[in-house]
């Protein structure tokens, strides 16, 4: 079995790994790089908890063939903190009780970041649309929507 060499940029750092054929990006990040922030929830594009940014665009890492990200830039929740400080979105999620079991939170935060990076002042409908591919089973969407709006409105200090 031959391994495929793969290099990409991961949260501002260049990484190089060897993957098996067919390995998805989620497995590559978790098992080969050790970034456990993206989670496995469904493996089929239904839950969004594995969401990462590929060149700034929201992608599902479980449906991404690892070798397709060669040379590209991957951002995960592990890279969201700004030095020792929480990102405004992280602060807003905490302040607004936007996490309960926490399992959907990494994907929710990346979906929210993808939105705010492109659209710093989204409407409520745009927030709903932005997280529509992310399933939360316990917190409920209201606190999450409120948290994203709060972060966008600058009502949260970093």
């Amino acid at each position: 079995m031959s391994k495929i060499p793969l290099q990409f940029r991961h949260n501002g750092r260049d990484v190089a790994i060897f993957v098996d054929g067919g390995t998805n990006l989620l497995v590559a990040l978790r098992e080969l790089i050790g970034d456990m922030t993206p989670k496995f929830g469904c493996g089929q594009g239904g839950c969004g908890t594995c969401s990462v940014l590929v060149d700034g665009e929201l992608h599902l890492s479980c449906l991404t063939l690892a070798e397709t990200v060669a040379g590209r830039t991957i951002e995960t929740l592990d890279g969201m903190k700004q030095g020792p400080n929480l990102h405004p979105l992280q602060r807003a999620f905490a302040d607004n009780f936007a996490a309960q079991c926490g399992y959907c939170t990494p994907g929710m935060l990346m979906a929210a970041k993808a939105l705010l990076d492109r659209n710093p002042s989204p409407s409520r409908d745009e927030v709903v649309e932005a997280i529509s591919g992310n399933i939360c089973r316990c917190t409920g969407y209201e606190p999450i929507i409120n948290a994203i709006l709060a972060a966008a409105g600058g009502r949260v200090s970093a």
Partner: protein
Amino acid sequence: MLELRKDIFADERDDNLKEIGKGTQRQDMLGHVTGTSSYFGDHKLQGMLHLKVVRSTQAHARIRRIDTAEAERSAGVRRIIRGTDVPVNLNTLLSLINFGKDDEPSLAVDKVRYKGEPILAIVADSEREAFEAIAKVRVDYEPLPAVFDVEDALKPGAPVVNETYPKNAFIYHDVYDHQRLRFGDADAALAGADHVLEQRYQMSPIEHAPTETNGAISAPDTNGRYVVYTSTQALFFSVDTCAKILDVPSNTFHFIGGTVGGGFGGKVDTLTEPLAILGAMLTGRPVRYVFGREEEMQYGPPRGAERIYIKDGVMRDGRIVARKIRAFFDSGAYTRLSSYAAVKCAAHLPGPYTVPNVYGDVYCVFTNRTPATAMRGFGVTAMDFAIECQMDKLANLVGMDPMEFRILNAYRDGDMKAHRREAKNTALIECVQVAAEKAKWPIRDEFRRASSRKDGGGSRAAIPPTPTDSSRARPTTPSQQRTSYDRLPPTVTREPPRDPPPPAPPPPSPRPAAPSHGATRFSSVFGTRRR
């Protein structure tokens, strides 16, 4: 937004609340928003193997032969585990509290009883190699007639799902095939009621659909122990269940859990831990067994289906005088926790209302469906759905406002409940009043003035004479016309009941002596026991 109604029952508590009504940060929030909270799957161990199970394609079948020859030779396969490899291959979850008989194998041996039942476990170097080996296993089935309906399962001649319970019903206290509640004479009261309404309600199974699927990682530790990372919601329960199935002392295991990616009751069944540990025992390597999404949705245990029949007798003035209930819990092929759900259900009857004559039969039934388990208020949820639908229909039948109808029949402090406990700290009336206020739903003054602490007890505290089932003659044809809700012409005038809510009719017998202390103890599972 949160609103505290401190005006209600204000005299019953110290109003100096330090926590309630104030925001308090969760202790795990920082971990959640930074992604550093550690779930079972976030542990990467050197040399970890992957376990997948071969599942039954049949709902009910005898297993003639399992051919693993080709699978054994498949690339990357380390071990194929059969039922005969499981030290104690028969268990029931509540055996830990001596409730129920062992009825479920970890891996099916002679027979499969539901579609998706695990038959073999394959431990391989990668998930892909485990899947490839699964595709090479040949299971020769002899299909058996299956039963999927709770009432069909109880009929004579129905296929026997689970030989541990040959009549397809869980057996309580080694004798009873259902939970029974008798309070007063429901048949007599139905015969004397102005209206009788009988309805059938049904709820389908509900999947918990946690975002994190069920799973466990087990690894050999020093001194013959095993460390187990698990998604379980019931960690100590899982430790003991694994100790029993694997026939080792429970201190063999070091379970690490607590951070669960959503459970809702669907992670108490200890489905992945025993096989993950056994895999680690048999290979000497860390073994991970995690459900895929389709496995979780199809074969992870759901909230069980229920079918409920309610027959109520109601007087023209709105008083419910009798409530007769038959309920069937679909446990699926094995008991898991449905036996307990039926107990909870019987204890909940007749809902939060004071009904002087109550009759309940609650069955925990085995069918060839996915075994059911706990989920948020299981045992009570579907019954409440049925009861509250019935309440709306009864209110309509007697021409009463549904909110006022509930206040009229609500239990109050001091009332005797059907299972012979005095109602205390009741608050349904206040809940309905606040709900009506919030919904701007007009209710009349006498109902707005009603209180859970007024007009209860007294004659409503009595335990009525209750005929035993053996002494009861077959009920004669009711004298009044049975009313079909569906055909009811909406001609009933909205005639208010006279005066404030009248108490339920006083059953004549006096209150019984207070229960003697010390000699007996009541448990919802075991019933009354001698200490």
